[in-house]
């Protein structure tokens, strides 16, 4: 698991994620996007080239939200979806968001910011 995609309109968060992932998985390839649409495109491209991707996705963004990204992902063909592991990384402290993400959308994990090494390790192990 060496491909990481981070989608969040908060640049500081993306930078923190990049450093934390690099420190935890030194040979990781990391893509960060503040534009959700571009992130989604990259996600699809990676999955189509048959590599596994770990996504860290923020929920609360203008224009296209994290929920929109998840819905778009659900429209992907099954073989692409298998490649992508969705993790929510949000500053939300709303339990409803967590329930919705895990129960309704079956996301892998729901993390509250900031991203830590322990979180990254818990995903790859």
């Amino acid at each position, binding site marked *: 698991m060496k491909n990481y995609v981070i989608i969040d309109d908060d640049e500081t968060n993306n930078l923190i994620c990049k450093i*934390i992932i690099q420190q935890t998985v030194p040979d990781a390839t990391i893509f960060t996007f503040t534009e959700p649409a571009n992130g989604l495109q990259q996600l699809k491209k990676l999955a189509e080239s048959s590599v596994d991707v770990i996504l860290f996705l923020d929920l609360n963004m203008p224009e296209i939200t994290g929920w929109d990204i998840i819905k778009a992902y659900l429209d992907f063909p099954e073989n692409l979806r298998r490649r992508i592991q969705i993790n929510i990384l949000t500053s939300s402290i709303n339990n409803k968001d967590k329930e919705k993400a895990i129960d309704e959308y079956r996301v892998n994990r729901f993390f*509250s910011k900031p991203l830590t090494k322990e979180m990254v390790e818990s995903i790859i192990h």
Partner: protein
Amino acid sequence: MRAFSGKMAGSISARRLIPVVAILPATLGFLFFMAYRHNLISSETGMAVIILTLILIFLFLLRYHAESLNQWANKRLLAEHEVRVLNEQLEQKVKERTSDLEQSEANLQAIFNNTAVGFLLLNTHYEILSFNERFKSAFLRVYEKQINIHQNYLDLFPQERRMFMIDQFIQAASYNQLVEYEISIPEGQPELYFRVNIIPVKSQNELVGYSVSVTEITQRRILKLQIEKMNQDLIQRNKELEQFTFIVSHNLRSPIANISGISNILVDPNIDESNLRKMGSEMAKSIRRLDGVVQDLNMILDVKKGLDDASEPVSLTALVNGIKESISTVIEETGTVIYLDFNACNEMITIRSYLHSIFYNLITNSIKYRKLDNPCEISISSRIQEKQLIIEFSDNGIGMDLETMGDQLFGLYKRFHRNIEGKGVGLYIVKLQVESLGGMISVASTLNKGTTFTITFKMN
């Protein structure tokens, strides 16, 4: 023998007279007979005495008869008098009773006709038997029809209404209970509300008709509607506050999470030089953001404080000119032109600071979201329509697609354009202030064409 033995007055007097008319002549006859036999008296004397005695007896009888006749006559007079007195008393009583009855009927009638409830009595064929003034006047007011005794009540209503009413009557009759329903008139936009009660009237367990009572409940209903509206407003306000708390906590949390993440990286002793520098500047950025949120919060809370300011007449032209002056640099740099049309209404009595903030935010908003290849044009106009003051802000800016997120436009920290500096606070405050002034704000927009904000204030 009956004549002697009875209890009537004649029999009694006959019995009393027997000794006089029978025993006395017999005793005298016997005494004279004896005296004659011993030659004590002559037969002529005896005859004379007997005739005298008979005359005396006759006189006695005459006197007795006269006396008793007189007595009877007296008694009859007395009795007649008594009967007359009794008769008079009876007549008096009848008069009194009649007047009591009349009074009590008048009282009942007064109650019947001077009550807030309209009454109507129908027989089983829905024929009108009786009604009171209130019912008559209410019926006239609501249906503009006179009602009369012996009329068929149902005939006064249109066919579709009749079916409903018959249902109610049947229900009252078959369950032998009060049926209650409400009517609102006219149906579309009701101005009058009534509650109708139907009670089956029975006589010896047999249905003989219906008593219909009608109470106007317009005032009560209006009050109820007001309370319901107030309640809804409160629920809405509560939701907004919840949303506000959620958004604020989220936006406070966001930079704090970043600061926490940065400090996790900074405590690592093996951190390289370039990351250290980057993290330092990111830390400063996050702290500034945090401070910004606190300042926004302060500003939003200030909106509520401003409500204590007194209302005053505010000239819309002067207000816009003041704002133009304060942002003259931006206006010049962007080549913005503001057209005003306040001919219909140039003055508004309101809280100046609020109106200033509303105008300021909407004008700067239009400049911020202008088309870069076109001069920015803003038109502000006022008009009066249906007792409402309507102020319209139109621009030729980049516009937006309201289809997808129109309802969030006025939300706190909601942003639509990521390439343009903004926090998503301005329009939230505008909405807050418009609503605090008792107005409403709405928006229409076409992508790449422009945006129009419409503010509506009720006029007093």
